[in-house]
C-alpha cells in the first residue's frame, strides 16, 4: 500500500528543491484525469492556470521559501468563488457563473503558494449529506464506488482520499466537512464560526456557514487553518481573535486532557461498528494520559429539528438573490414575476426548493414564533449544554456520523432520513464551536475487494469527532494529532488511489 503524500511532505519537497512545483502539479492533474471519470470529485479542472502558477513558484523559489503551502495542489468546493473560474455551487442556476472576484480564502491560499487545480463537486448550494443533490451527478466513495462519499463537501473529501490533492477546502453548515471526511477516511476541520472569512462563499445559512480544510492529517489541517484564519474587512463576522500557531500546538501530549463523552446520547441509533471504533479510539486517548469524563448534552437530541428550522429559514432568505437579474440563469423574458419564478423553477433542484419552501413557511406570518423563534430559543439551550460541559472537560468526543456511507440512491426519496445522518455534527454548527473528524477505523461488514479488505480490516471508513471550545482549534488538533501518532488509520488509502 502506498500512502499519498501529505501537504507537509509536498510543501517540504518544493521548498527544499527536491521536487519542482510543476512536477507535483502535473502528478496531481494526472491523478485527477485518471480517477475523476469514476469518482466525479471535480467539476472543473484548471490545469493550464495551475501549471502557470506552478512555474511561477519554481521560478521564484526564494520568494516562496517560507510559504506554508508552496507548490501544494488544492481543490476548492464549487461554492467558493474563484476569479475567472466558473463557480456553480453544483446548481443549474449558476451553471455559467464566472465570479469577478476571489473569496478571501482563495486570496490567502494563493499568497501562501498553494496551486488551485480545480473546483469540486458538492450538493447543490451545499444542501445535502451525500453529494447526490448535485445538479451534475453524484461523487462516488473511493472505498466503494456504489456508495456516497458523504456531503455536502463530497468532492473535496474524495479528492484527498483518492490522492488527487493533499488539501482541499469544503464548507459546513451542519456537518458538510466532517461527515464526508469521516465517510472517505480523511481528516476534516470545521473551524469556530468566524474563525475563517466567509467572503466569497455562496451563502446558505449565514449564522452557521464556515469554510474549512480537508487533509490527510491533523498537522496538515493545522497548517492550512493558519493560512486562511483571521479577520477580514470584507466579512464583518470574521473574528479579530488572535490566530494561534496551530502547527506548534501539536505536541503529542494529551496528559491531563479531560475528554467528555456524551454516552447517553450514543445509546441508540449508532451503527455497532462505528460505536466500537469510536470507543476504541477514546481508549487510545486514555492510554496516552487523557481522562475520560461522562457528560450530558440534554438538548442535543433537538439539534436536528432546530437546525432544519434555522438553516432553512436562513437559506430561504439567502437564495432569494437568485432571480435571473444579475447573474446566472434567466428564464422567460416577457414578464418580471414570471421571470423570477420561471428562473427559480428551472434553476433549482428538488432539495433546494424543499428547503426554500420550509424556510419560507417557518418565517411566514403566524408561524414565526412557533418555529423560528422557538428554534432559536432551543439553540440557546444547546449552547448552554456545551458551556456547562466545557466547565468539566476540555473537548467532547463522539462519532462523526451514526451510519457508514450508504448506497447511492438509497435515501434520496426520504429527505428526513437523509437529514438524520447529521445528528452528531449539527450541534457544533448551532453552537459555533470548532470540530474535527479524524479517521478511526473501518466497518467490518462490506468488503468490496477481499484482498484489500484483509489489509484494512474490511469495509468503510469511520470518523471520530472531537469538538472544542470556541476559538480553541489548537486543543482538538493536538488531540487528533496525538491519536494519529498511535494509529495507522490515516495512512490507509483506497485501492483507486494507487492505480
Amino acid at each position, binding site marked *: 500500500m502506498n500512502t499519498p503524500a501529505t501537504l507537509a511532505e509536498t510543501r517540504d519537497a518544493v521548498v527544499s528543491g527536491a521536487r519542482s512545483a510543476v512536477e507535483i502539479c502535473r502528478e496531481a492533474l494526472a491523478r485527477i484525469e485518471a480517477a475523476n471519470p469514476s469518482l466525479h470529485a471535480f467539476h472543473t479542472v484548471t490545469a493550464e492556470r495551475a501549471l502557470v502558477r506552478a512555474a511561477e513558484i519554481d521560478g521564484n523559489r526564494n520568494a516562496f521559501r517560507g510559504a506554508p503551502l508552496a507548490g501544494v495542489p488544492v481543490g476548492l468546493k464549487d461554492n467558493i468563488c474563484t476569479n475567472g473560474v466558473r463557480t456553480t455551487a453544483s446548481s443549474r442556476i449558476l451553471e455559467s*457563473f*464566472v465570479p*469577478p*472576484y476571489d473569496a478571501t480564502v482563495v486570496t490567502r491560499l494563493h499568497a501562501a503558494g498553494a496551486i488551485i487545480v480545480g473546483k469540486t463537486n458538492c450538493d447543490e448550494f451545499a444542501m445535502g449529506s451525500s453529494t447526490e443533490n448535485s445538479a451534475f451527478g453524484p461523487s462516488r466513495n473511493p472505498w466503494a464506488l456504489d456508495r456516497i462519499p458523504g456531503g455536502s463537501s463530497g468532492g473535496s473529501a474524495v479528492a484527498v482520499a483518492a490522492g488527487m490533492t493533499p488539501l482541499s477546502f469544503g464548507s459546513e453548515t451542519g456537518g458538510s466537512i466532517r461527515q464526508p471526511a469521516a465517510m472517505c477516511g480523511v481528516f476534516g476541520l470545521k473551524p*469556530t*464560526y*468566524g474563525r475563517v472569512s466567509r467572503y466569497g462563499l455562496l451563502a446558505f445559512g449565514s*449564522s452557521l456557514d464556515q469554510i474549512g480544510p480537508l487533509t490527510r492529517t491533523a498537522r496538515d489541517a493545522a497548517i492550512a487553518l493558519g493560512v486562511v484564519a483571521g479577520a477580514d474587512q470584507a466579512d*464583518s*463576522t*470574521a*473574528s479579530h481573535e488572535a490566530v494561534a500557531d496551530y502547527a506548534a500546538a501539536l505536541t503529542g501530549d494529551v496528559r491531563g486532557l479531560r475528554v467528555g463523552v456524551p454516552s447517553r446520547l450514543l445509546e441508540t441509533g449508532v451503527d455497532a461498528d462505528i460505536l466500537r471504533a469510536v470507543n476504541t479510539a477514546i481508549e487510545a486517548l486514555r492510554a496516552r494520559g487523557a481522562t475520560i469524563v461522562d457528560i450530558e448534552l440534554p438538548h442535543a*437530541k*433537538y439539534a436536528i*429539528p*432546530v437546525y*432544519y*428550522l434555522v438553516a432553512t429559514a436562513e437559506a430561504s432568505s439567502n437564495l432569494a438573490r437568485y432571480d*435571473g*437579474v*444579475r447573474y446566472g*440563469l434567466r428564464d422567460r*423574458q416577457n*414578464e*418580471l*414575476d414570471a*421571470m423570477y*419564478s*420561471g428562473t427559480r*423553477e428551472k434553476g*433549482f433542484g*428538488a432539495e433546494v*426548493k*424543499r428547503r*426554500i*419552501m*420550509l424556510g*419560507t*413557511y417557518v418565517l411566514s406570518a*403566524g*408561524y414565526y414564533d*412557533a*418555529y423560528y*423563534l*422557538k*428554534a*432559536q*430559543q*432551543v*439553540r*440557546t*439551550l444547546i*449552547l448552554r449544554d456545551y458551556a456547562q460541559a466545557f466547565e468539566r472537560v476540555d473537548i467532547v468526543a463522539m462519532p462523526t456520523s451514526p451510519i457508514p456511507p450508504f448506497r447511492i440512491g438509497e435515501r434520496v426519496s426520504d*429527505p*428526513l432520513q437523509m*437529514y438524520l445522518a447529521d445528528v452528531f455534527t449539527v450541534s457544533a454548527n448551532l*453552537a*459555533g*464551536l470548532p470540530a474535527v473528524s479524524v479517521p478511526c477505523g473501518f466497518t467490518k461488514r462490506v468488503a468490496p475487494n477481499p484482498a484489500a479488505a484483509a489489509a484494512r480490516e474490511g469495509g468503510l471508513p469511520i470518523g471520530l469527532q472531537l469538538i472544542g471550545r*470556541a476559538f480553541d482549534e489548537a486543543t482538538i488538533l493536538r488531540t487528533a494529532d496525538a491519536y494519529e501518532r498511535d494509529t495507522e488509520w490515516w495512512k490507509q488509502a483506497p485501492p483507486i488511489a494507487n492505480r
Partner: protein
Amino acid sequence: MLAFAMPTEFTRAQVEAIAELAHLELDHSEVEMFARQLGAILAYADQVQQVDTSGVPPTAYGVGPHSADRPDRVVPSLAIEDVLANAPDSERLRSGGGFFKVPRVIG
C-alpha cells in the same frame, strides 16, 4: 405553550401559497411531493415544542457578534463591466455607468 395546529400533511393550496411567497413555480408532481414531505419534516421538527423555553432568550449567532467597526474610507470595488459580465441582460452607458435589464414593469 403556544397553541397552534400542526398539519401532518399540507394541502395543495397551502403548498402553492408557500411557493408563491418563495417565487417558486412548482409543477403538479412537485406540489404533491412537497405536500407530503413538508408535513412529515415539520411534524419531526415539531419536537422543539416539547422544550420549556420560558425566559430563554433566542440565539441568532453561536459565536460573536464581533465588532465590525472600520474606518469609512473609499476603497476600490469591482469594475462595472466585470459585474455586468454575468448578467443575462445588461447595458453599458457611454458615461461609463451601466445597468441590469429586466422585463418592462410599468406599461
